[in-house]
């Protein structure tokens, strides 16, 4: 009987290998592999995010520093150029004002000199006229006196008879002398009045010249203050324009950088998720909008 005993069932090596593989790769081991895979992808995403943040920080710092240096250089050059232009313009205007003032002063001095010279000449002429008049009067008086003395010498005998006439002559001479003196005093007074009038006229002209000079100086001062205010306004306007341009450039750069980051994230995360992994999140979002969806489908 032992010879015909049935042999126990023996599995082939292939079946054993398949059974071993099935035992090894059970659901627990597969879940561990999935967890390991998820952890690995999470680490990759974290590293990518950190590297991206570092790169973006470095780029922003470098670009911001370069932009600041460039803008400061441009601003300094612009302000220096404007200062140079304004200084040159002011110097030119001030030189022109100096020249005009000097010419006005020269003209005023020449006019004063001419008036003084004319006054001096008139004074000389009047002095000569007065001397000539006095000399002629003296000569006339000497002549009359000599004639009277000749008459006295010739008519000494008839002195008594002509005494009265002599006295009359003396009296007439005295009256003539008095008249001459009065005429002389009148001439001197007239001369003094003329000289005073000429002096007053010259003084009025000098005052007018001084007033013109004062008004010219005031105009120059007002022009200088206007120029200074215009320079200040121009400087403020340029500063505002530079600030606006800087803000616009920084804004555009930030906007572009945000788009680059968006694009990078979309590219980096595009293939990381399947629908099954997202299903809880999708259902949660649908749940949040459940009422809106239901209302729309009932319409």
């Amino acid at each position, binding site marked *: 009987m032992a010879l015909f005993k049935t042999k126990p069932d023996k599995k082939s090596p292939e079946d054993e290998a398949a059974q071993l593989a099935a035992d090894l790769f059970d659901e627990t081991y597969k879940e561990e592999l999935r967890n390991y895979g998820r952890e690995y992808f999470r680490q990759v995403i974290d590293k990518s995010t950190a590297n991206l943040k570092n790169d973006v920080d470095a780029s922003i710092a470098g670009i911001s520093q370069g932009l600041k240096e460039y803008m400061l250089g441009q601003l300094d050059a612009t302000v220096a150029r404007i200062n140079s232009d304004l200084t040159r313009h002011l110097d030119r205007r001030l030189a022109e004002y100096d020249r005009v003032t000097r010419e006005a002063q020269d003209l005023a001095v020449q006019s004063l000199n001419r008036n003084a010279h004319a006054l001096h000449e008139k004074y000389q002429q009047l002095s000569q006229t007065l001397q000539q008049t006095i000399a002629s009067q003296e000569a006339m008086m000497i002549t009359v006196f000599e004639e009277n003395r000749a008459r006295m010498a010739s008519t000494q005998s008839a002195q008594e008879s002509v005494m009265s006439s002599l006295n009359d002559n003396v009296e007439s001479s005295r009256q003539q002398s008095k008249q001459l003196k009065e005429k002389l005093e009148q001439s001197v007074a007239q001369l003094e009045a003329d000289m005073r009038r000429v002096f007053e006229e010259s003084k009025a002209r000098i005052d007018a010249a001084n007033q013109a000079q004062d008004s010219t100086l005031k105009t120059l001062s007002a022009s200088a203050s206007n120029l200074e205010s215009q320079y200040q306004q121009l400087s403020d306007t340029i500063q505002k324009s530079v600030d606006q341009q800087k803000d616009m450039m920084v804004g555009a750069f930030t906007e572009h950088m945000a788009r680059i980051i968006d694009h990078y994230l979309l590219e980096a995360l595009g293939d990381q998720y399947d629908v099954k992994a997202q299903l809880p999140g999708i259902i949660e979002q649908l749940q949040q909008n459940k009422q809106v969806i*239901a209302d729309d489908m*009932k319409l």
Partner: protein
Amino acid sequence: MTDSKQKTYADFVLPASLVTRLDLSRLLIDLERLDNELTTSTVREKVDSSRAAQPVIPEQLEEFLRLNNLDLDDTNERSYLIRQLRILKDKAPVVHMTFASTADRESLIKLADWLRQSAHPQTVLTVGLQPSLVAGVSVRTPNRVHDFSLRRALVGQHDKLVKQLEALGGKG
């Protein structure tokens, strides 16, 4: 058929495996084909007096008939059922869902089940693929579009990202 005369298209319960509008069309085609086969078989039986082979009913159609307590013995009732299914195919609310990657059948079944429980019991899906969504889904109901994608979330956070970049850039 037991209740087909009383039931209209609005009373039909869709099986869970019937997810998309294409599935509904396929169900209708199967029913029409089956109707033809059964009619032909009936005629042959009358002519040959021999019993024809029983036609094969697809699993989805069988589940539909079972859920709605229907059978296909009477040709008039089959015609009525076909007409109702045609109406259902035209009037069933359709939700278009666009995914970033190909959606598996199991996920679609869960989504259709949620919509049938929450919105309308006869909802069917049409599925689209748009990799630029990155993740999430864009849902289009008859009158609205709900974008639950990661791209939309990133666009929504765009202003915040700009502010952070300005802060990093020292603009403040």
